[in-house]
């Protein structure tokens, strides 16, 4: 038999295992979903109240015109980036270990972008007029102001969101075909049939599919980079000390990938458990993601140092004042927590034993994301509390429970969407896992002995573990 590959997973079994995830997850799934929904409910309540009363109830004020809303906006956009990293960049690099996990990473991209877009609305003082920001032709010849970084944001986020949605969908078509073939009746059958577009896996379809997937991937990489550098211009283009920083675009992109990878680790662990994906989301893959995350963490740390050093030696008193403010002012606790979570905690990922330890990595990934959330906040509030105009300095501002509520709600919103997606669509790419095992079997057939020893050892160890 030619299917006797070392990874002795029969293709049919792959189908069964993954399709199972659409049927009966562990009870934990329902718990998570319930919690997420209730958290989202809280956020929704807060938002409705704020809508009624005005932005004041969020404790924003003059000069603290921005705070957690913009911070969360950036945070969620940032989280989206690693999906692209895994699906696009690693795809082009032919890193085949990405295949079992890129699907949910991409879903994460899409949903975190949607969550981010939500904050644009939450943040506006007159959200009911939000359509003024759309370039629709009108009698007054009034168009949005294309010079505003906020509009660049909107454009970039829209492009990114739609593109990655398309990318997610296109990459999912063959799997949708599989679902279609294995579902027997009901609305899902209809849904899959519709979405599979009559995919048959003919050579013609596969040919064009490969080219399309590659092209879109190539577009997504510069797009992802542009998106977060554009988001960084919200601050870099402004005039305020502590925001007007040249190194922001790369800094933001690094931060984005960072928080994204951290999020992937968390979700990886959750999905692995609730959908019993132990055999696909294997620990060696986790290890690879962890190593990647660590590398990015170091890049981020480096860029942080660059920013601080530039400020310090730049001798712009106002900039310096803001930096000092961050370090010893009222925001110091958060600033140092951010440094700790962002630059110290990652070293836990250097310990080989811990790299594959589910609980430790889960904790670490959550800490990393906490750090990244604080980072976004620390870009906004310290500056606004201590900008150019001493008369308006305000060190007593603190987000109200309403503001916090909406921020927490956004997490509920994201998790809800994500969990529903994973239940309705295959969160592991079946056809690509098949490719993976197929190519590995070919590879190991060609050079029985040439298989990397370490890899074998790991794989065995994993088998033992499972």
């Amino acid at each position, binding site marked *: 038999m030619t299917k006797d590959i070392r990874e002795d997973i029969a293709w049919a079994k792959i189908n069964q295992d993954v399709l199972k995830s659409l049927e009966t997850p562990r009870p934990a799934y329902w718990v998570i979903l319930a919690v997420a929904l209730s958290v989202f409910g809280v956020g929704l309540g807060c938002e409705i109240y704020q809508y009624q009363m005005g932005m004041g109830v969020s404790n924003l004020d003059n000069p603290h015109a921005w705070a957690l809303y913009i911070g969360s906006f950036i945070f969620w956009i940032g989280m989206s980036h690693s999906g692209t990293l895994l699906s696009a960049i690693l795809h082009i690099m032919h890193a085949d270990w990405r295949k079992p996990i890129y699907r949910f990473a991409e879903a994460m991209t899409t949903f975190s972008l949607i969550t981010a877009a939500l904050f644009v609305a939450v943040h506006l*003082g007159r959200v009911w007029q939000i359509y003024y920001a759309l370039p629709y032709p009108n009698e007054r010849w009034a168009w949005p102001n294309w010079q505003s970084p906020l509009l660049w944001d909107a454009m970039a986020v829209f492009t990114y969101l739609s593109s990655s949605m398309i990318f997610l969908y296109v990459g999912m078509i063959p799997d949708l075909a599989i679902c279609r073939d294995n579902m027997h009746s009901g609305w899902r059958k209809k849904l899959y049939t519709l979405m599979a577009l009559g995919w048959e896996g003919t050579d013609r379809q596969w040919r064009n599919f490969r080219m399309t997937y590659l092209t879109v991937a190539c577009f997504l990489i510069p797009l992802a980079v542009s998106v977060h550098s554009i988001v960084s211009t919200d601050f870099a283009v*402004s005039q305020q000390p502590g925001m007007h920083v040249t190194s922001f675009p790369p800094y933001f992109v690094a931060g984005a990938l960072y928080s994204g990878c951290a999020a992937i680790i968390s979700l990886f662990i959750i999905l692995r458990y609730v959908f019993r994906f132990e055999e696909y989301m294997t620990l060696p893959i986790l290890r690879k993601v962890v190593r990647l995350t660590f590398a990015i963490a170091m890049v981020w740390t480096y860029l942080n140092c660059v920013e601080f050093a530039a400020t310090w030696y730049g001798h712009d008193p106002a900039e310096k004042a803001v930096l000092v403010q961050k370090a010893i002012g009222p925001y110091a606790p958060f600033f140092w927590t951010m440094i700790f979570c962002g630059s110290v905690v990652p070293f836990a990922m250097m310990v080989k034993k811990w790299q594959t330890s589910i609980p430790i990595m889960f904790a670490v990934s959550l800490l990393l994301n906490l750090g990244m959330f604080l980072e976004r906040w620390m870009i906004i509030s310290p500056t606004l509390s201590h900008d150019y105009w001493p008369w308006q300095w305000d060190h007593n501002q603190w987000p109200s429970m309403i503001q916090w509520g909406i921020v927490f709600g956004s997490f509920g919103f994201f998790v809800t969407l994500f969990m529903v997606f994973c239940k309705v669509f295959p969160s592991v790419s079946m056809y690509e896992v098949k490719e993976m095992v197929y190519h590995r079997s070919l590879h190991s057939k060609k050079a029985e002995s040439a298989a990397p020893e370490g890899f074998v050892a790991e794989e065995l160890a994993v088998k033992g573990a499972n």
Partner: protein
Amino acid sequence: MGVANLLENWSKFRHTHPVDDHGHEDWMAYPTDIKWAMAIDLDACIGCNACSVACYAENNLPVVGKDKYSHGAAMHWMRIERYWDENEGEGDFSAEQGARFLPMLCQQCDAAPCETVCPVGATNHTEDGLNSQIYNRCIGSRYCLVNCPYKVRYFNWYDYPSTKDVWPSPMEQQLNPDLSVRGKGVMEKCTFCKQRTYTARNDAKTQGREVRDSDVMTACQESCPTGAITFGNLFNAESQVAMKWKAQQVKLDTDKQAKDENPDNGLRGYHVLEWLRPYPSVMYMERVRETEI
């Protein structure tokens, strides 16, 4: 059509006005050559707050009350800032030479940081050189406030018209019908009393003459007990403000004034935060103190 318009006027649209000290000659949007500007003599300002109260009366500013004031929701378009002489060491102030008062209002910058960042173009440059704020267009992203180095833009954090004790009957009868009362979620700021300047401009236009100083006063200027505030058309060489700017050799579009070039030339005109190059339309004249005493 847009593209034709664009091609034919490409160079014209890269206009230098209003950064320039003169109106743009081929700028058709200029009925008259008007550039509103102000000069504030800090040596005359006694910090009495009359201008601020006059602004409340003229521009329908809401009184937000203690609690909201403590949350930075004060709406004073015109605020008096009080600074002390500083000795060495943080917060060690000296009152020997009194306090320094600075009336702070929207500087109507000609290269305004707030204008470029508004996503919907709710704040723009008017043809008479003001930094306008279109309440109807504003969606409340508050980017302009974040980017304003003077923090002179004020956001309606609440719906003041419907808030208790802001305009309880019959106080609403005092509201000035010449301008709107802003609702929640809108950014607002000093307009150099647009309702007054526009009337003056139109009157002058109908009479086919230039705007004169006698035509218009801002509310703050009108009330100022020491006449520390001068306001008028910078392009009209006879106007008080133009003469003051000229006397102080203050330029609109520089980040360094004559008095900085040469400290001994006896001048005292400057712009606040001019090194950020927002090119403010308000000239301040330094406070003077006796050396003999």
